[in-house]
C-alpha cells in the first residue's frame, strides 16, 4: 500500500512526458459487468492498457462502448468484475474502505455535467475546500490560502466568486470550479469524462487550454474520455479507440489519426465533420449502429459492421497486438499504410 499513501505529497520529478520506469496506471484484462433483470451486460470486456506518469491517454468511442465505465472503474466507482488495476505500484481492485478513501486523494475524476456535479447549496469556496476539510490538511488559514490559490489558477477570482453559489456561474465557470475541486488535494491522476462536451466551442477551448496548463504546472497524468475525435487528439499523447467493450487500437495520437490500422478507427475518422467547406466529404463507411452489448457478436465485435470482415473474424477474437512501436491493433486484417 505504499503507493497510495502520503496525501498531497509531491510526486517528485518527472519530465514533460516522463516515460521512465513503471507506468503510473496499469489496467490488465479488465471486465466490468452489470446485471439487471437477470440479463448481464459486459460493459467492459477484457481491456488492457498502461498510462505513464505525465502522459495523457485519450479514450474515444461511441456512446455505450464502455468508455465511461472504464473511467469509473479506475476511480473505483464501478467495481470491476475481474482483472486488475495497478496504480502507482499498488493493486487497487481489492482495497478496503480506508485505503480506497486514501486512493481517492490520488485519483480524481471530473464529470460531463459541470452544473449538476456541484452541490447547489454550498458556496464555491466551501465546495473547493471540502476535500481539504475532510482530510484535515493544514490549518484553517492554510486551507483558505490553498483554496484561493486553486481558484485563481483555474481563472476564478476567489474574492468575488468564493462566497457565491454554483447557480450564479455559467457552465464553463462551473467546470473550472470542478477542476479546482479535483486538483486541490494534488492528485497524481485525473480522469476526465466528457468534460467539455456540454460547453460552447469558445469555452471548450478555454477549458482545454487550462487543462494543458494545469497538467504542466501540477505534473498531472490524464485519462481523457470523450467522443469528439478532434478534442481528444488535441489533448492526448496517445489515443485508445473502444468499441462495444473492447479496445480496437492504441497509438500515439498523431499516428492514429494519420494512419489508422483498425477499420473502426478509419470509419470513425471518416464521419467526423470539419469546419472547412473544401474538405472532401468521404462517404460514410459505417452503416447502422453498434449491436447490443447484451448479446455481442462472436469473434471480433466489430465484424457485423466491418467492410473487411471474413469468416475468421466470426470465430476468433482478435487480441491487441503491436504492429509498430507503441501502435497496437486488435484486428485480423489491419489496414496497412
Amino acid at each position, binding site marked *: 500500500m505504499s503507493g497510495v499513501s502520503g496525501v498531497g505529497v509531491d510526486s517528485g520529478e518527472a519530465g514533460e512526458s516522463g516515460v521512465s520506469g513503471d507506468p503510473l496506471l496499469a489496467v490488465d484484462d479488465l471486465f466490468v459487468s452489470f446485471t439487471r433483470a437477470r440479463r448481464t451486460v459486459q460493459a467492459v470486456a477484457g481491456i488492457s492498457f498502461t498510462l505513464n506518469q505525465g502522459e495523457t491517454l485519450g479514450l474515444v468511442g461511441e456512446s455505450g462502448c464502455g468508455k465511461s465505465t472504464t473511467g469509473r472503474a479506475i476511480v473505483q466507482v464501478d467495481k470491476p468484475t475481474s482483472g486488475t488495476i495497478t496504480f502507482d505500484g499498488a493493486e487497487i481492485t481489492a482495497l478496503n474502505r480506508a485505503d480506497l478513501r486514501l486512493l481517492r486523494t490520488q485519483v480524481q475524476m471530473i464529470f460531463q455535467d459541470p452544473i449538476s456535479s456541484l452541490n447547489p447549496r454550498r458556496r464555491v469556496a466551501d465546495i473547493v475546500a471540502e476535500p481539504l476539510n475532510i482530510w484535515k490538511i493544514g490549518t484553517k488559514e492554510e486551507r483558505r490560502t490553498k483554496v484561493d490559490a486553486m481558484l485563481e489558477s483555474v481563472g476564478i477570482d476567489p474574492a468575488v466568486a468564493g462566497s457565491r453559489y454554483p447557480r450564479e456561474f455559467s457552465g464553463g465557470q462551473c467546470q473550472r470550479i470542478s477542476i479546482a475541486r479535483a486538483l486541490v488535494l494534488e492528485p497524481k491522476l485525473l480522469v476526465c469524462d466528457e468534460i467539455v462536451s456540454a460547453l460552447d466551442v469558445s469555452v471548450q*477551448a478555454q477549458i482545454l487550454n487550462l487543462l494543458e496548463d494545469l497538467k504542466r504546472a501540477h505534473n498531472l497524468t490524464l485519462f481523457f474520455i470523450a467522443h469528439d475525435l478532434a478534442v481528444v487528439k488535441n489533448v492526448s499523447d496517445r489515443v485508445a479507440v473502444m468499441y462495444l467493450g473492447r479496445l480496437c487500437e492504441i497509438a500515439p495520437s498523431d499516428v492514429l489519426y494519420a494512419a489508422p490500422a483498425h477499420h473502426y478507427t478509419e470509419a470513425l475518422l471518416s464521419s467526423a465533420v470539419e469546419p472547412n*467547406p473544401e474538405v472532401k466529404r468521404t462517404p460514410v463507411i459505417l452503416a447502422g449502429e453498434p449491436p447490443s452489448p447484451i448479446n455481442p457478436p462472436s469473434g471480433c465485435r466489430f465484424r457485423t459492421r466491418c467492410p473487411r470482415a471474413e469468416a475468421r473474424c466470426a470465430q476468433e477474437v482478435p487480441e491487441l497486438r503491436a504492429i509498430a512501436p507503441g501502435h497496437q491493433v486488435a484486428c485480423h486484417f489491419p489496414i496497412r499504410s
Partner: protein
Amino acid sequence: MSRPLLPDPSVQTAPLLAVDDLRVSFATPQGELRAVQGVSLTLERGKTLGIVGESGSGKTVLSRAIMGLLPQGSATQTGSVRYQGQEILNAPTKELRRLWGTQIAMVFQDPMTSLNPVQRIGHQITETLKLHLKLGRDEAKETALSLLMQVGIPSPVERYDAYPNQLSGGMRQRVIIAIALACAPRLLMADEPTTGLDVTVQAQILDLLSTLQRDREMGMVLVTHDLGVVATRTDEIIVMYAGNVVERAPTSVLFSQMSMPYTEALLRSIPRIGNPSHTRLQAIEGRPPNLIAPPAGCPFAPRCPYAQDKCRREKPPLVEGAVPGHSYACWFPLATAGVVAAAGGGGAGGRGGGSA
C-alpha cells in the same frame, strides 16, 4: 385576419421564407431580455441555410419565432416573417396549425424527449398523416412504413410497433425526421438535429437530411453551434452573436473571406483533426454580453482582439461586402483573402490564396 394562410398560386414567385427585421424580447423580472435584435433573412426552395451561434446567441429563439412556437403571452415579436409571401408572424395558432406539418415542419434537438413515450412510433407517424392528409388507416400505415424505410430504419414493420424507449438515440431522431417529413413540407427547420448523437450517427443523419432535402426540393434551415456541421452542407450561413446577425455569406465565401472577428474567433477556437496534438487553441476570452442590459456599441467588442473606441461606442450595422450576398456587422472588418488559411485551417496546406 381573413387572409388565407395556404399558399396561393399568385405568390409562388415570393421566396419560400422571408424574415424582415425580426425582433423578439421576453419580459423578465430583471428587465426586457432582447433575444433577437433585428434579423433579416431569405431562403429559396431547395436551398439550405445554416444558422450558427453559441448558446444564448438567439438562434433557437429565432427558429421558434419563425415557426410561431414562442408563447405569445411572454414573448414580444415584431417585424415580419413571410412564408411564400404570406405574413405568419403573430398569426393565431389556429391558422398556424394549417401550415405546421404540411408546409413547415421542425426537427428538434432532443431525440430523447421529442417523442411521446407512451405511444408506439407507428401511431405517432400516422397521427400526422390522418390529421393533415386525411388518410385512412391502412393507407396511413403503408405511408408510415415507407417513411420509416426512407429514413433508414431497419426492419420497419417490427419498429412500427415499438415504443420510443426501445430505440437508440439515432433511431429516434430518424423517427422524428420521418414524422417531420410525413406530410411533405416545403420548409424544414432543423434545430441542432444531431447534437448529442455519436459522430457516425451524426454523419448518417446529416446525409439523410441532405438526400431527402434534395429529393423533395425542400428548403431547410439548419440551426447549429457547430461550424463543422454547416461547412459542407449549406448554401448560405448566418452567424449570430448576442441576438444579432454579425455575418452572413454564401458558405464558401464565409469560410474563405470571413470579415467579422467573431466568426474568425469561433473558427479558430475549434480543435482540428488535421492539427498536431497539443496545438494551442485560440480561445475567446470572456463571455457573451448580458442581453438584458447589453453594452453600447458592438456586442462582441468586449471580447474582440481588434476592438477600438468606436466599437465600444457605436453598434455597427450589417453592411454589404465586396462579394454579392456577403454582409457583416463590423467597423473594422478583417482583411479578406488568406486570413482563414493563416488561422490554421485544418493544417491541410492546399488551401488559401486562389480566391478570385
